[in-house]
Every structure is written in structure tokens, then in C-alpha cells.
């Protein structure tokens, strides 16, 4: 039986000061590739085409009430506000503002390749979050134009993952907004180690923070769904930092979004994925499926890397562990974020071209 698992090493190739500037007006984004929220409605936007991260004070702190799933097709509703139909837009990202529970969508209007942020409240009202006149801080990425996959707020730090573009590199940026004049951005190349024998580059798809015994980690998921943690504070210029692979959720899946939540006294990671081999070997009725993972697996110190736990073997529907299970109620979920302590807000595909916005109890 194959036991290819992954451990990771990060070679820090740059620790460079970047310009951070606070201003009022329009931050002048060239793209909106990633969205995340910090405290008090602080919206963090990844603009890879503009080689910048921008944090915006939304001032959005008034709670909206979500009581049920929204009627109609969310993609049609977003598109209609932009004078087009569902085929005329792509929903790039969903982030729920924890200060208000308002949903923020990064939407690309395909005619013109124009990226905008649209909001949806609990009553289903769609508006634009205008960037015309906002208080913002800009962090310039020293690597130049790049493609960003995800952003996370980590207790005062901004974590940014970049994907492959013209080169198959793997880049992670960390930004500390509390030191705006000497913000350190760490650019890392990441290598997979398969069975301790081979190393290859692998871009991170989605990231979140993890805290354990006073230490801060970046937790990331790669294509083919290994979950890996990096000690952020250990990243030093001109050094190599080992990451730790704690579980693989199965091959042929690409992670999309993830977050943590508590239920019945336990903490879990919820992560949705898109499956490459859905037709040949489906995990569920949709190519989009979601995993519920025991959060304590991040504390694992023995069964790691090549010995890390695997959700399944070659048979994707024969579980090898109960610590990572398929969340059946989340089949078809394309985008997800935590709405509150007990619910998630999701965009679900009907696999026929339709998309609904739904409030789901956390599994």
C-alpha cells in the first residue's frame, strides 16, 4: 500500500520591508482575489494584480439577522445588480463580517474583467461595498504582481497565500499591521516531501491561524488536501522552516475555504473542496464536498508527515479514521464561511448551473 504523505519545508527567501500607508479615499484596487475579516469590521482585501494587501475600515458593525435560506439564485441576484445574468459573473470569494454577519462577496464581472465587492444582508438585500471613499491601509507586496488564493487574520497578523502563475512557486506573506513602518513580509517557497523521498513546490490553497501553547501557526491546505502547519514566529530570513503535515483528506481534491468552530465542547475544522475525479470516483453527489476534521489533530506530534493520518486510502469512500469525516449536509458547497457560533453561510451548487445562498447548522 502506498503511504505517500507530506511534510513540508519552507525556505525563506525574502524578509523585506514593505511600504504600508494609511489613507482615505479609493485604494485603487486592480483585482479582488481574496477576502477576510479582522476585528471590528476590518476588511482585508488581497489584490494580487496590484501587488498589494489593503485593509479597509468598513464601519459595518450593525448585526443583520439570518433566519433562513435565501430564495432564488444568489448568482442571478448578484449578477442582476450588475446588469447581467449569472453567466456574466464569477463569485470569487465569500467572507462573513463577524461584526455584523453581513456576507461580503468578491465578484468578477466577466465583461470587462471588473472585480467588485457586493454585500448581502440577512434579508437578502444586495448592495455594493463601495471603495470610493474609505479609510484604508495599503501593504505593498515586494514580490510584485502575483495570484493570491487566501487571506487570514491571525490575532494581529495578516497571513496571505499565493498560487502558481507564470512560475510554480509557493509563496506565503505575513504582515504585521501594528508595525506599519517596518512591516516584515516573509516570502517562502514551500516544498512537499513525499514519503521522505521527494520534494516539490506546492502552492497553498487556503490558510487559517492556529494557536497552541502561546505559539502562533499558519495552517494551510494544499491540492490533494494535506493539512499542514507552520510556526509563523520561526520564519527568519535566510532560513528553512519545517512545516508539519498532520492529515491528508484524500487525493484529487482541491481545498477551497476553511474555518474552525466549536460544537458540544469540541473544536473542528470545516473545509470544502472541489473534487477532480468526481465522475470516476465521487465522494458525494456533487464534485464539491466538505470535510469535518477534529481540530486536536493539529496538536499531533507523533503521527505526522509520512506517518500522518489519512482520511481514506485508494477507496475514497472507505474511511480510515473518524477524526475526519464527510459533512453530508454540505455536499455541493462552493463557498463557505462561519456565520456565528452554530451556523455557516454557504453558496451551494445544484450542479446544473444554479447557486443558492443557504444558512446551515454547523455539523
Amino acid at each position, binding site marked *: 500500500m*502506498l503511504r*505517500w504523505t507530506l511534510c513540508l519545508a519552507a525556505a525563506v527567501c525574502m524578509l523585506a520591508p514593505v511600504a504600508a500607508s494609511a489613507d482615505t479615499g479609493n485604494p485603487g484596487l*486592480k483585482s479582488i482575489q481574496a477576502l477576510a475579516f479582522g476585528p471590528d469590521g476590518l476588511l482585508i482585501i488581497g489584490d494580487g*494584480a496590484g501587488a498589494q494587501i489593503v485593509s479597509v475600515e468598513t464601519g459595518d458593525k450593525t448585526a443583520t439577522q439570518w433566519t433562513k435560506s435565501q430564495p432564488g439564485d444568489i448568482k*442571478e*441576484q448578484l*449578477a*442582476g*445588480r*450588475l*446588469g*447581467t*445574468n449569472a*453567466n*456574466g459573473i*464569477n463569485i470569487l470569494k465569500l467572507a462573513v463580517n463577524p461584526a455584523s454577519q453581513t456576507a461580503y462577496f468578491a465578484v468578477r*464581472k*466577466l*465583461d*470587462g*474583467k*471588473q472585480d*467588485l465587492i*457586493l454585500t448581502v444582508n440577512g434579508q437578502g438585500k*444586495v*448592495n*455594493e461595498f463601495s471603495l470610493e471613499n474609505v479609510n484604508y491601509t495599503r501593504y505593498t507586496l515586494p514580490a510584485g504582481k502575483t*495570484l493570491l488564493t487566501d487571506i487570514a487574520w491571525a490575532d494581529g497578523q495578516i497571513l496571505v497565500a499565493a*498560487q*502558481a*502563475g*507564470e*512560475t*510554480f*512557486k509557493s509563496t506565503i506573506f505575513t504582515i504585521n499591521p501594528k508595525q506599519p513602518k517596518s512591516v516584515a513580509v516573509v516570502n517562502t517557497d514551500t*516544498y*512537499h*516531501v*513525499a*514519503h*521522505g*523521498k*521527494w*520534494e*516539490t*513546490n*506546492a502552492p497553498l490553497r487556503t490558510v487559517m491561524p492556529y494557536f497552541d501553547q502561546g505559539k502562533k501557526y499558519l495552517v494551510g491546505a494544499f*491540492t*490533494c488536501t494535506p493539512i499542514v502547519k507552520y510556526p509563523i514566529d520561526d520564519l527568519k530570513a535566510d532560513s528553512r522552516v519545517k512545516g508539519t503535515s498532520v492529515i491528508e483528506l484524500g*487525493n*484529487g481534491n*482541491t481545498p477551497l475555504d476553511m474555518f474552525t468552530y466549536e460544537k458540544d465542547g469540541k473544536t473542528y475544522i470545516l473545509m470544502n473542496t*472541489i473534487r*477532480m*475525479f468526481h*465522475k*470516476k470516483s465521487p465522494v458525494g453527489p456533487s464534485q464539491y464536498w466538505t470535510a469535518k476534521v477534529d481540530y486536536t489533530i493539529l496538536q499531533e506530534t507523533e503521527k505526522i508527515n509520512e506517518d500522518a493520518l489519512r482520511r481514506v486510502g*485508494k477507496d475514497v469512500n472507505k474511511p480510515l479514521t473518524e477524526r475526519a469525516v464527510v459533512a453530508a449536509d454540505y455536499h455541493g458547497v462552493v463557498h463557505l464561511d462561519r456565520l456565528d457560533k452554530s451556523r455557516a453561510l454557504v453558496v451551494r451548487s445544484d450542479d446544473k448551473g444554479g447557486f443558492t445562498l443557504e444558512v446551515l447548522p454547523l455539523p
Partner: protein
Amino acid sequence: MNTLLLVASFLVLQPADELRFRKLEKGQVEVTAVLPKDLAAKFPVGLVSVNAGEALLRLCLLDPKSKKPGPPMLGRYERRGNELVFRPRVALEAGRHYRAYFGPTDAASNVADYRPIRPTPGEPVRVVKVYPTAEVLPANVLKFYIYFSGPMLGGQDIFEQIQLLDDKGNVLESTWLLDEIWDETGQVLIIYIHPGRIKWGLVLREIFGPVLYEHRQYSLVIRGEMLALGGDKIGKDYIKKFSTTPEDRVRVELSDWKLQAPKPGGRAPLVAQLPKSIDHKSLERFLSVIDAKGQKVAGASVVGKDEKSWSFAPNDAWQNAEYRLTVNGRMEDVAGNTPTRPFDLDLTSKQPPPQSLELQFHP
């Protein structure tokens, strides 16, 4: 402004010619509605809130079949003179049918229609080039660049519309990494063969095998169903045929590059002959010529046939002095190998020592 008061006082419908579309520069359009005198007196001059504006004036996309209006478009409302003016947030799309409604939402409204005219069809968008251009590629070729003559619409359908076929014309399945990577113009697409089927040791490759095998004939087919920005199909299939060599799993050896030094006093190009095809974007981005003073030499570079040569002509004549051709370690060949490491690094085999990333020449 009290919206309800405004709506309640809108007792008399306006003549249809009081509601119209006004064309602006650069193809933009705004909708203007003449306010009744009693309303005009109460409406503040300047920007009007979206809620107040939408209560009176709405611009909607009509469904082409049912003729039902979609939700009001997002945009900016302004009282200008005796007019209420709406400027949509995004450009109206050619070929669609828009309708402006002037009046309360719960009563009959005046309407005015607008159908942005499609520009006279010119030359249809077509595929102009595919990189790598060589007709012989390693079986682990990592990605293709597809250049179109005009901006494309994009969307996840492209991963079905771009296909790899074997020598019998069978479409290979599950070939692509489902990342849609367009340049800012929407005219260049980077599409990756799924790295999980290229990397050594990953379960994906072990189960499903590589996408391409050595010593075989393949076709990259870009189907005519692909949609250009305006929604028109590109019409004709584009076919790039290529054969495969064994996989290339070694780093780019710069000592194998042959430099043809130019003569001093002239501006004839420096020519580098490369034993294997290098990613054309890498050649454009990651090579520099440095003079004896350490200054980057200004000039123009050209990527040669099959991306197996690179030439550089300086703006000023070559000096009779030492020059260096410097190579960024991120430069990739068509299989993702760089000068610093192969795409997959076999940790159990002896690796060559690091190589210099500079080649010296003396005109």
C-alpha cells in the same frame, strides 16, 4: 429625504420623453428623469442615497425570454438641476435589453428602453499562439500559455473546452488543474496540467498515472465553443500537435548554455543557445545583462524558435569589457525545473552542487 414622502407625492406620471438614456463618453450611459416641480423642490441637489433613488428610478436588465426585469442595477443617484440622474456602476453590456422605470415601485411607472448595440462584428477572436511552441515536449510538460487575439469571457467551462487528445483522438480525462489564470487583458490563459499527476510519489499519479506518456503523439485542442468577451464563440478549433520525450527531471544546467558574444563597438545581439526549451515568460522576465560596472544594460530581448534561444540587443554599442548574463533562480523550463533544483527533488540521490547563476562574456 423622506423616501415615503417622495413616493407618496409622485402622483402624476411623467410623460415618457421625460425619462431617457443619455450617452456619455467612452460608451457610458446614464438615465435621466425630470422630477415634477413639487418633488424637485424637496429633493436635495447633489448625491441621493441609493434607497431614495431606487424608490423612484430603477434601471433593470430584462430577461430575454420572459421580459421580466431583474433587480435594479447598482449605481450612483444624483439630483442635477430638475433631473434625477442615475449612472450605473458598471457598463451596460452590448446585445442586452435594459429598461428604466420612473415611478414608485408599487405603481405603474414610465419606462424607457435601451439596447446597447453590439459593435459591428470584426475579425472573430481566435487563438494566435500557444506556448511552448516546440513540437516535441517532455512528457512532464507543466503548463500551456494560450494567446487569443482578443479578450475572452472565461469561466469554468474552459476546462472542458480545452482538451488533450491522444493519437487516436480520445480525449484525456482529468488533465487540468482547475485554476483559471488569465492575464489582465483577458487575452492570455495559463493552464496547468494537474501537478498531482506529474509529481513523483503522489497518490494521484500512482492511481491515475501521468497525463502524458513518453514517445507518444498528442494534440492540445482549443475548441471553437470557447467564448470571447462579447459572448461569441471563437468558432474554429485550434490544434497544437506535439510528441513527447521522456520526462525531464533535471535542473536547468547553465553550463550547457552556449553564448555567442557580439563584437565590441556594435549593437549586434548577444545570443544564448539553450539545449532545452525554457518557459518563454521566464526568458522574458528572468534574464539580465550586467555591464562591468554592475549596471543593468538597457536593450531588447527576443525569445527564439522553440524557446531554445534568447538574444539581447543593447540600446548602446557593446564596450570592449566584461559583461555578465545573470539568471534569476526562479527561471523555469517547460517542465518546471529551475537552475536551482528539479521540479521533483529526489532526496535519496546525490545532488549536484549549487551552480553559478551568471555567465560571463566579453564582446
